[in-house]
């Protein structure tokens, strides 16, 4: 049962309320003909016409590039100063259920041994307001990985669009309830009574069996299976899929600056790049693109589930949409279900 209702025209009020509280309001906006998550200042910037924004909102929890320390080299040698992190409260509005489900995955990987505060401190301050999907496309496959437009995992607040364009609002977590009460002025207690818009539920891909995939990946023989090369030799080795993926988390640490001072940065990396796992000797255990692609698949369906007990793939389909050679992960999933 809905806790509150949000009139579409009151979104501005919500944004103002959030921003007046000192928080950042992140929502899909159109940039270069694409819906993109962006920190916005008014309702007119927000777009409703999207399936999923081009980027994942992990950008706001795990930025593509961030300074983690500064260094200077002087008379006394090298001096390193850590970067104090004081993340802003952030509201991510308009997330989809699939990518909200990725939060647990990211958290698991950033906390499994030591805690990466650069991630956790941000996540702790983030409220995820999800809008259940009323449209989608052929790349969507959440149902195939066990999620659906109604999944609430990772969301603090869940919105369902009604036929007249307003939203019924349900708090999922304590943080969500806090959010509703903090910004109560933006919400209505009762709605117009209009029916909920039907959700877009992608058809489950018949040939895919996640448990069978896991089983198959657990057996080492698959490494030499020619099926890998056959399916993925068209991969050109760019990092587009990993950079839009809500669960991809690889990063690289680099130093940038002059000879005397500079900063240490944490930058996204991608397992698809040909320098991934390249050893200083010149040897690379993953010396062909299909091996790197296999690694990505393993990460999603073996490493994440087995090592962190979390899901590696949420079925958002971004990697399929963005791939320059239309390499469709579900086709590989199907093959690996055999």
């Amino acid at each position, binding site marked *: 049962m809905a806790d509150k209702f949000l009139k579409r025209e009151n979104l501005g009020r919500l944004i103002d309320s959030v921003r007046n509280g000192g928080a950042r309001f992140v929502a899909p906006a159109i*940039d*270069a*003909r*694409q819906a993109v998550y962006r920190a916005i200042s008014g309702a007119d910037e927000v777009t409703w016409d999207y399936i999923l924004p*081009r980027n994942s909102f992990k950008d706001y929890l795990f930025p*593509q*590039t961030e300074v983690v320390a500064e260094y200077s080299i002087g008379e006394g040698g090298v001096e390193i100063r850590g970067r104090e992190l004081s993340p802003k409260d952030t509201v991510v509005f308009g997330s989809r259920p699939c990518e909200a489900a990725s939060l647990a995955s990211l958290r698991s990987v950033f906390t499994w041994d030591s805690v990466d505060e650069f991630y956790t401190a941000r996540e702790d301050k983030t409220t995820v307001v999800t809008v259940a999907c009323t449209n989608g496309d*052929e790349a969507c496959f959440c149902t195939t990985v066990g999620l659906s437009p109604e999944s609430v995992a990772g969301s603090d607040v869940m919105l369902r669009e009604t036929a007249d364009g307003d939203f019924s609002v349900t708090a999922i977590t304590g943080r969500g309830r806090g959010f509703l009460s903090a910004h109560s002025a933006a919400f209505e207690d009762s709605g117009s009574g209009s029916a909920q818009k039907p959700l877009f539920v992608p058809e489950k891909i018949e040939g895919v069996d996640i448990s069978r995939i896991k089983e198959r990946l657990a057996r080492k023989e698959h490494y030499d299976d020619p099926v890998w*090369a056959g399916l993925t*030799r*068209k991969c*050109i*080795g*760019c*990092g*587009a899929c*990993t*950079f*839009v993926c809500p669960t991809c988390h690889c990063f*690289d640490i*680099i130093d*940038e600056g002059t000879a005397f001072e500079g900063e240490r*940065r944490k*930058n*996204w990396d*991608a397992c698809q*790049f*040909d*320098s991934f796992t390249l050893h200083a000797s010149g040897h690379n255990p993953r010396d*062909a*693109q*299909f091996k790197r692609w296999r690694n990505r698949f393993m990460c999603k369906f073996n490493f994440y589930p087995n090592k962190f007990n979390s899901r590696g793939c949420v079925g958002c389909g971004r990697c399929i949409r*963005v791939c*320059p*050679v*239309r*390499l*469709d992960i*579900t*086709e590989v999933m*199907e093959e690996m279900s055999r």
Partner: protein
Amino acid sequence: MENAVREKAKGLLTSGEVKVVIGWGWNRNGTRTTPVFITRPEDAGRLVWNPLCVNNLSVYLTRKFKDIQALGRPAIVAKGCDIKNIAVLVSEAQVKREDVYIIGVTCDGVVYRQELWKGELTPNIMPTKCHNCDVRNPHIADCVIGDRSGFVPPEAPAGMVFDRIKALDAKESAQRWEFWIKEFSRCVKCYACRQVCSLCYCERCITEKNMPQWIETSAHPRGNLSWNLTRAMHLAGRCTFCGECERACPVNIPLNLVNQKLITVVKDAFDYRSGYDASAHPPMIVFSPEDKENFIK
């Protein structure tokens, strides 16, 4: 025509003249084309040819794809524009002409992006290159499939890319700077532009050289600018305007503008057009004592 491509591929594979045919096929749902590698004659039926066949498959001829090379001598289904890239690869000794069988397909244009396809090829969904194409009948090929195109490109190149370049050129430099910094600031350094480009065949890209690290790997505007400037320079005199980089860019950076700008510069300054002559030296590694400029004081 599609059948002719299939028959040709089948014949080549059956005779053993080639070991793999690189072409386009459908994805599972039959909604998008995707590169396919046909190694058995009986699979030749998977090949397709239609206006969705946008990918420039010549990238698969480069040394980066060792496992494709390991399959044996390739045949490649190629549009005229794709063949331009093969010509550059040959001129830069990356591919020997005799080592690849080119199945040229005549072409009436392709879509700019597959998402735009609504079942019919209309001029407004075609990229600028198609509007100005002078290689609709493949200029270098071992065989050409399809009816001869009678298309005559306009004398003065036209299309959105040219219009936008003209508009930018007319602006103040500060406005151009603002425009490009905004465009490049979206760059996520996924290097899809590089990976999809058959002329970016370096096994170790300059971005991956870290002693010294000329191009900062960070995706901040400074690192993005140096990457995009360097990419453009490395393609100066070589780029054939196939448009793959812009198509592959997940953040819609208008790379075609930079590419075409330099193509025009090279054409005007050195009277060179890339991709037409596989025996020509790329213009940026040769010179003429008569090269004209007016800015070196």
